[in-house]
């Protein structure tokens, strides 16, 4: 079968366009202490933050490139631009956003989505969040949804208390890099017992070539509160690679409920190396719903540390790897208290020589009795040249845990395709239907518009690849 079509056929016109506008402010290539000071100075940061950055930079330099997962050796840190800003001010009305940036987000449907079903929107273009808005009623309830830079200035106590505490700067090389060079990202605080019924969304867009985007997101859900945050990302297609190394920290205090949904659809020249971690306290629930379609290499393992009794983790992910892509994704569930529950469901699809890896950690610490944990990973391989691996790690230190682990690798059967084709569907349609069925467990968790968009993207892929 001749199936050498590019992953994300249709990406070019829909997301792959670029704005030929020079950033207003841009640092020179490469990272050093001067560049970091320049970024910090531009942001008029307090001294504790500049110290934080410089310390992290030292750790970043001292840590070797990780060799245990996908191949990252081609990343040249000296060729990357670490800071670029399209505008020198943020706005909360679309009128004030620079025209070309506005056009970009219009094309991507962001303001439309905001009008339709979102409670708040943030839009980051390269390094800076250029637009932020939160519905009035949520604001009046005390909900904070702003960009991380503003939060450092306006809410220093909250930021100091949690920033870098869930994911310490030394956690891994890319968390250290982010801690040194971070810019933008979202800051959310939900006061006790407030239920934010509509999702809040941030959209991340890389435009500059050879760019590194290092947004930093911190979500604090106070006792008994509830919030759903959605993150989407795209970039133009350049011949050279870009880097996206984000850090996302979630604090779910007693009885709260946080859901974090990601639809990552980077262009196939972006290294997507993201650290995501949540601390779930007594009876709190954290859900990661993580979809990875794009990028060249993704390494991402959303984690939940269940800190206190009754905490719950639910990690649901889908990875789709086409030609030249490696999706090394997974999940970590760390049980640090009794009666904690985790469910990990991972679905992956690879085709045209793409590679998917599931990498997961399930840990039950001593003293964490009566833990329930459930891991399922299903892989679908669409042709002979693609590859899928599973790397599960389990560290169980309590005897009374109830643990299940299930892994399945399958192919789309000739008979299944034939069955659907006998009803009048083309091979591509039949293939799409089987794949969409395979990830249905994931799509049904998405807001309607995202589910439709995801299905549409996958159909597009299949149309291109089945002759």
């Amino acid at each position: 079968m001749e199936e050498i079509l590019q992953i994300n056929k249709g990406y070019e016109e829909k997301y792959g366009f670029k704005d030929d506008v020079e950033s207003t402010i841009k640092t020179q290539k490469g990272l050093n202490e001067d560049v970091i000071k320049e970024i910090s100075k531009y942001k008029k940061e307090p001294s504790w933050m500049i110290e934080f950055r410089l310390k992290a930079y030292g750790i970043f330099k001292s840590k070797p490139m990780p060799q245990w997962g996908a191949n990252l050796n081609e990343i040249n840190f000296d060729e990357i631009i670490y800071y670029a800003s399209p505008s020198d001010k943020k706005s909360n009305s679309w009128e004030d956003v620079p025209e070309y940036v506005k056009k970009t987000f219009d094309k991507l449907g962001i303001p439309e989505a905001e009008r339709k079903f979102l409670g708040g929107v943030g839009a980051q273009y390269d390094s800076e969040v250029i637009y932020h808005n939160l519905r009035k009623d949520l604001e009046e309830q005390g909900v904070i949804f702003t960009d991380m830079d503003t939060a450092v200035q306006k809410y220093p106590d909250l930021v100091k208390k949690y920033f870098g505490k869930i994911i310490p700067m030394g956690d891994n090389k890319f968390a250290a890099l982010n801690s040194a060079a971070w810019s933008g990202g979202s800051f959310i605080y939900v006061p006790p017992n407030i239920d934010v019924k509509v999702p809040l969304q941030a959209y991340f867009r890389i435009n500059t070539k050879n760019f590194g985007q290092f947004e930093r997101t911190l979500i604090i859900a106070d006792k008994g509160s509830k919030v759903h945050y959605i993150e989407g990302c795209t970039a133009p297609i350049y011949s050279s690679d870009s880097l996206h190394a984000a850090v996302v920290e979630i604090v779910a205090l007693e009885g709260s409920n946080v859901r974090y949904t990601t639809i990552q659809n980077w262009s196939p020249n972006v290294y997507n190396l993201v650290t995501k971690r949540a601390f779930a306290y007594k009876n709190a629930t954290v859900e990661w719903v993580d979809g990875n379609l794009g990028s060249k290499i993704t390494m991402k393992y959303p984690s939940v540390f269940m800190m206190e009794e009754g905490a719950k983790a639910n990690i649901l992910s889908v990875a789709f790897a086409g030609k030249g892509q490696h999706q090394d994704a997974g999940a970590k569930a760390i049980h640090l208290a009794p009666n904690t529950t985790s469910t990990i469901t991972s679905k992956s699809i690879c085709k045209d020589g793409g590679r998917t890896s599931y990498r997961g950690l399930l840990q039950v610490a001593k003293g964490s009795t009566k833990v329930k944990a459930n891991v399922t990973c299903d892989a679908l391989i669409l042709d002979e040249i693609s590859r899928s691996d599973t790397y599960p790690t389990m560290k169980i230190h309590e005897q009374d845990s109830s643990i299940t682990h299930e892994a399945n690798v399958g192919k789309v059967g000739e008979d299944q395709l034939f069955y659907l084709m006998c009803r009048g569907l083309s091979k591509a349609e039949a293939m799409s239907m089987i794949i969409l069925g395979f990830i249905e467990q994931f799509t049904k968790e998405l807001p309607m518009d995202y589910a439709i968009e995801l299905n549409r993207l996958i159909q597009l892929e299949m149309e291109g690849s089945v002759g």
Partner: protein
Amino acid sequence: MKLEIKDLWISVNGKQIIKGLNLDINKGEIHALMGPNGSGKSTLANALLGHPKYKIENGEILLDGIDLLKLKPEERAKKGLFLAFQYPLEISGVKFSNFLFSVMKKYDHELNIVKFKQKLNETLKKLNLDENFPNRELNYGFSGGEKKRAEILQLLMINPQLAILDETDSGLDIDSLKLVAKAVNNLRNPNFSCLVITHYQRVLNYLKPDVVHIMVDGNIVLTGDYELVNEIESKGYENIKELV
């Protein structure tokens, strides 16, 4: 719709299964195809729809004079050919009703969801299926009998011109069998033809085929009217072989 099969030879994985078979089904006729296990009945059914595993070595299949062998399975379906599978495939995560709506849109581009639901509910009643049945995943977790009834549900919805029923009767209890046979009988009209593949007389008692064929070892060895069914039932295939 007239089906003509001329000197058909089919192999599977290098093994010759169908050996020079000839068969004509005229518009409006119901034919039964009987024969022992391994005689090639299902091979013929799958090859008629173009399963890639079945290699046509020689021969012709014409549907109203059109060369079927040049067409892909989905094109054959759109020409009016339908196969009710002996072992319907399970497709998890795909809602039966969504699947069926996508399929029906292939035959009727104008079809809207209201019209579809209306027809679906009527058809479910005919087969004594629950109205929630289409909310289940396609064949996934269905019992044997449910799978067979789901095939007939599709048949009734699509309303093809030539239907092949590949052992639809096996796995059905007597009540379901009656429902299915009655529903297929209701399709009988001058434009509907049907090939019923079966081991048993039971279903044919209700369907009353116009022509009955006995297939042994890759070929039709005996063709007759409904009387032939009774003869098979009393004598068995072994003795029929001697008759030939």
